[in-house]
């Protein structure tokens, strides 16, 4: 996705001053937030800026940096490019992030999926159960936990 438009950048950074930062990692785009500002930011995006359609919630596990990141994509139903914002939390046990279900009810199944696959707990979610690995499965399949990453980079072609 392209970098945020310059007019958007100005409006968002003037509205939220120093509580959000632009993501400056090479090849990345979007906004970085702290989890304490997440709900306020989401409500402001939906009500003031018109981003009423939450497209996707993903979790990414950055084991080398010791962080788990939750990536949100929102769009406007009137059209146009969207906004990507991320919350980074340190990779402790448990990983907890406020839930967006009260603001965007479409986040319900997606947050259950992030809990199931990665182990990110969303506080305030009405029904946080496993969605794919239902049963007595107690591990989080996509969270990196290999002591020696032999299996991680195994596939090469020719």
């Amino acid at each position, binding site marked *: 996705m392209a970098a945020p438009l310059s007019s958007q950048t100005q409006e968002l950074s003037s509205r939220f001053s120093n509580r959000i930062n632009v993501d400056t990692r090479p090849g990345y785009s979007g906004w970085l937030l702290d989890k304490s500002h997440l709900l306020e930011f989401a409500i402001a995006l939906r009500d003031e800026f018109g981003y009423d359609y939450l*497209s996707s919630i993903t979790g990414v596990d950055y084991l080398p940096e010791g962080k788990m990141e939750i990536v949100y994509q929102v*769009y406007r139903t009137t059209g146009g490019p969207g906004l990507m914002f991320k919350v980074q939390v340190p990779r402790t046990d448990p990983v907890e992030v406020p839930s967006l279900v009260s603001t965007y009810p479409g986040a319900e199944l997606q947050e259950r999926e992030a809990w199931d696959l990665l182990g990110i707990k969303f506080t305030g979610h009405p029904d946080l159960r496993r969605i794919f690995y239902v049963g007595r499965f107690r591990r989080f399949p996509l969270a990196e936990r290999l002591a020696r990453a032999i299996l991680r980079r195994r596939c090469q072609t020719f």
Partner: protein
Amino acid sequence: MAENSNLFDDNIAYPQGFNPESQSFDPEKALYDALQTYQKNEIGLETDHIIVNIGPQHPSTHGVFRVAVILDGETIVNLKPVMGYLHRNHEKIGERNTYIMNMPYTDRLDYLASMSNNFGYALAVEKLMGIKPPERADYIRVMMAEMTRISNHLFLIGSLLNDLGAYFTPMLYALEERELILDIFEAVAGSRMMCNFFRFGGIARDLPEGTLQKIKEIFFERLPRKIDEIDRFLSENEIIRSRGVGQGVLTPENAIRFSATGPLLRASGIPYDIRRAEPYSIYNRFEFDVCTRKNGDIYDRLMVRFDEIRQSIRIIQQAAKQIPEGPVMSVKPMYQVRVPPGEAYGRVEGPKGELGFYVVSDGKPNPWRYHVRAPSFINLTAFGPMCIGQKIADVVGVLGSIDIVLGEVDR
């Protein structure tokens, strides 16, 4: 002993005191407890509410999908979808594969619309790599994507009418047309359903001799007539109207709140189509309308798909006339693609909704994180609220009109 030896046994680091084999809770009880959280109406005689599982093995659940409902007589008071019976761990396998190895896996996500899945994944990785396909490849991609949309909607018409009780007669009318499209896919890509046709920078191979002529014959002459014929049989039918009009209504505000996309959103009246809202590939060169309907019930969702088939035929007609000659790959075909570090979210308007691929790369041959935003999965958030208050026979109709494919819901 040979059965107990595990080559990778000491490679996993669990937290202290964690035993993955210990059994601690009952998932079914958690599901039924979550179901019980609904408004209980205490007027009149006290009645019992029954929990019914429309179980994973059922002829109208479109695959292995389970719906747990609580019934008050025949009226539904709460409904929860239960999925995961077809979970194939697509995202973790995507991290193990190299980028080009992932392309056949994306075919099997929404197995009725494989070219769309390929399209989304190719767009996401091309954004990361910073390359664009040549003109001819773009035209062929658009034609294949629209043919996939028509093929998917024909299958939906067949299966929705099967669910509503018309058994196989409309299904065979619709599938006969779909066979012609699958013949074209077989000529172009080698396989009817799992096409694996798109590559990063273009498509795998050019159209064979005579295929363009065959496409023109089907889409200029045969298919518009046949769609009008099927429409004439179905849209004035009294049973479809009484089972469809006013049942399973999704209001526009709820549709946006529940992140519904695709024909589900457009049948409720919101004209959001990614091909117009944030155009990708060469969709800004074609004239087509965004099809919406006003009511958001089952009948409107069926009719909006007929409208979309007609618009797709229009796009294919324009593309078949405008297609230029030229190469079909802009970079040399490589076994190991070089992808710079970064992230990208590539989305397409798939036949079921917004299909998005979120790929994070760290410069190595495999992705670091690969996530699929599956439209069928997210459209199911609206399934519960849509069905509350309806009779149980309408659950089947609503589920059929949301159009889910389990390969995408479970990945």
